[in-house]
C-alpha cells in the first residue's frame, strides 16, 4: 500500500480528472478549479518521488510549496480576469467568449 506506484496512480487519476474538467466544463470557475486539480496532481508526484527516490527530503517539498504559491497567484489572476469578463458580458460561460473568432 505504501509504495510509489500507488501514489503515481492516484496522481494520474487526479490529473485525468483535472484535464477532463478543464476540457468539459463550460463554467470558467469550474475550469479554474480543474486547473487547481492539475497542479495538485503534479504536487503529489513531486512529494511521492521525493519520498521514495531522493535522500534529501527538502527538494520536493520546496517545489511543492512554490507550486502552491503559484497556484494562489494564478487563482487571483484567473478570478480577476473572470470578474472582468463577467462585467463585460454578464456571464461566465466560456462559450459566450468568442469575440476573437477568426
Amino acid at each position, binding site marked *: 500500500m505504501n509504495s510509489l506506484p500507488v501514489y503515481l496512480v492516484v496522481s494520474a487519476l487526479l490529473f485525468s480528472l483535472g484535464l477532463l474538467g478543464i476540457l468539459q466544463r463550460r463554467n470558467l470557475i469550474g475550469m479554474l478549479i480543474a486547473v487547481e486539480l492539475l497542479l495538485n496532481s503534479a504536487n503529489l508526484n513531486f512529494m511521492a518521488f521525493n519520498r521514495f527516490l531522493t535522500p534529501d527530503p527538502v527538494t520536493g517539498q520546496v517545489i511543492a510549496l512554490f507550486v502552491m504559491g503559484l497556484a494562489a497567484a494564478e487563482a487571483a489572476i484567473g478570478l480577476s480576469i473572470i470578474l472582468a469578463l463577467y462585467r463585460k458580458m454578464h456571464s461566465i460561460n466560456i462559450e459566450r467568449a468568442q469575440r476573437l*473568432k*477568426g
Partner: protein
Amino acid sequence: MGSLIADPVLLATVLGTNLPFLSMAAILLFTRSNPSLSGKMSVGAIAAAAVCSIFLLAKLYSASPIQYHTLWLSSDRLNIAFGYYLDPLSLLTLAIVGVVACLVQIYSLGYMAGDPGYSRYYAFQSLFAWAMMNMVIAGSMLQLFVFWEMVGLASYFLIGFYYEKWSASQAGKKAFVMNRVGDVGFFLGLIWLVIGFGNLGIPELNHAASSNALPQSLLTVSALLIFCGVVGKSAQFPLLTWLPDAMEGPTPVSALLHSATMVAAGVYMFSRLFPFFAASPDAMVIALAIGTVTMLLSSTMAMVTYDLKQVWAYSTVSQLGMMVMALAAGGYFAGVFHLTTHAGFKALLFLCSGIFIHEFHTNDMRIIGKQGGRKLKIPLVCMTIGALALSGFPGLSGFFSKEAILGQLATQPSKIWLYAGLLGAVMTAYYSFRLIFHILLPKGGIEEKHHAEHAHSSHEHEEEHHGYIFWAMAIPVMILAGLTLVLGWIEHPLEHFLTSHVVQAHPVQHVAEHAAEHGGGGGWLMITGISAGLLGIFAAWFEYGRKGASRKGFLSYFPAIWKLFDYRWFLDMFYRRSLDTFVYGGLTSLFTKNDRRIIDGGIDGICLLTEGSGRVFSFLQSGMLQYNLLIMVLAAGAAVLYFLY
C-alpha cells in the same frame, strides 16, 4: 607628460597647433553669446600659435628634421604612425599659416564688427587654423588626410558663412562637393599605397621613392591618384570653378582661403611628397600639363570679370597653377617659394579689397572707382604693392619667386612650358592693373557718393556691416605690404634652408636647378620675365589708364571670346549638364528605382505575404477556447507517445 614640459620644441608644437582648437571649443560651448570675448580668445590663441610657429622656425633653423611619432595602427605588413614631422618645409609653412591666419583674424576684428554671427565666425576661423596647422606638421599621409578633410570642412563652414543667402550656401556646397571628388582620388591613392607599400609615413615614402625602392607602376598610379587631391584642393583644372565661387564668404575668409590655408594645402601636399612625385616622370608630366592649363584658363577668366574679388580669385587659381607647374618641372624650391610669397601678397590683395568692399558695399570695380575708391589711400597703395608683386615687378616678392619658376621651366626639354609661363605672366600683369586703373583712374572722373547707387549696384552685396574699425583692418594690411616688399630678398637663405636636407636625396636635380639659375640663360630669362610683366602693365595702362583710353579692353572687340572667358570656358555649364545627365538622369534614377522597387517593394511584399497567410489560416481560430485546449492536449499526448515508443 614629463617629456612635454622638458622638450620646448614639442611643447611649442603641441601648444601652437592645438590652442586654436581649444579656443574653438570654448567659443562654441561657452562664449557664443559674448562676441567680443570670443573674438579676443580666438585672436589670442592664433597669436600664440603664430609666436610658437616662429619660435619653432627660429629654433630649428639649422637643425635636421625632427620626428615625433607613435604607432597608431599596426598589423602584419601595415604600419601607420601618427605624430609630428618637423622639417624645413613644414616649419616654413607652419610659420606662414600662423602669421597669415593671425593677421586675417586681427583684420576680421574690424571687418566683422557687429556681425550677428561674430562668435560663430571666430569659432570656424579657429577650426580652420587648427586643421591647417595640424595638417602641415602631420607625420603620416593618413594623418595629413584627416586634417586635410578638416580643412575642407572648415572652409565649407566659412564659405557658406552667410548661409541665409542662397548663393553663399550653394558656393559652400559646391566647394565641398568638388573637393570630395578630388579627395576620393587621394584616398584611393593612399589605399593603393597601403596595399603596395604598407607604410604611410611621409619621410619613409619619400625615402623609398627616391631610392627606387618602389616599383614604377605602383608609384605612377598612386602619385596620379594622390594628385587628384591636389587638383581638388588647389583648384586645378578641371576642378577649378569652386574657388571663384568661394568668395561668397566674408572677404577675410577669402583672404585666408586663397593664401595660406585651403588652396595652399594642395600645393603643400605636392611639395611634401615632392621626392615621391619626382620619382614618377609620367605623373610629373601630367601634373605639369594640368598646372599649365589651369594657369592659362584662369588668367583668361580674370581678364573679363568686373568683380574685384573674382579677379583675385582667378589669379589665385592661376598662381596655384604656376606653383604646380614649378613643382612638376622639378623645382621644389621655386614652387615652395612662390607658395610663400603668394601667401603674403594674395592675403594682402584680398584684405585691401575687403576694405574697399566694406566702404562701398559693392564688388564691382567700376562702381568703386566712380565713387572715389582712390580716396582710400592706405588700401590703394597697399593693393598696388600687392598687384606689382603679383605681376612680378622687380624688387617685390613675387618677382623673385616668379623668376625662380620661369628659370625652372626653362630647364624643361620642351620650351612650350616656358612660353606658357611667360604668356601667363603677361596676362597676370594685365588683369591686375586693369583692376588698379579702374579704381585709380575711373572713367569720367569721380562722382559724388550717392546712397541711391548702393541699391542698384550690379553685385548686390548683402553682408551687413554694422561697425567699422578702420585701423584693425589697416594695420594687418600694412604689415602684409611690408612683408611683400622684403620677402623676396631672403630668397637665398630660404633656398639654403629648404633644400639643405633634400640635397642628399636629389643631388642631380639640385645641380640642374643651379645650372639653370646661374648658367647662360639666366640673364636673358630675367629680362624676358620682367618685360613680360611690364608688357602686361603697359597694355593695361594703354587700355584703362591713359587719357582718352577706351576702358573697354581689347577682348570686347571679340564678343564670342569675351563670352567664353566670362562664362568660365563653359566649365560650370558642362558640369551642370553632366551632373543632370549622368548623376540625376542616370545614377539617381537607378537608385530611386532600386529604393522604390526593390527595397520598398520587398518590404511591402513581406507585409502582403504575412497578411494574406494570416487571413488564410484565421479559420483555425474558432473562438472556442476548449477546442484549442483539446487539440493541444492531444498533440502533447501524441508527442509523448512518439517519444516513448
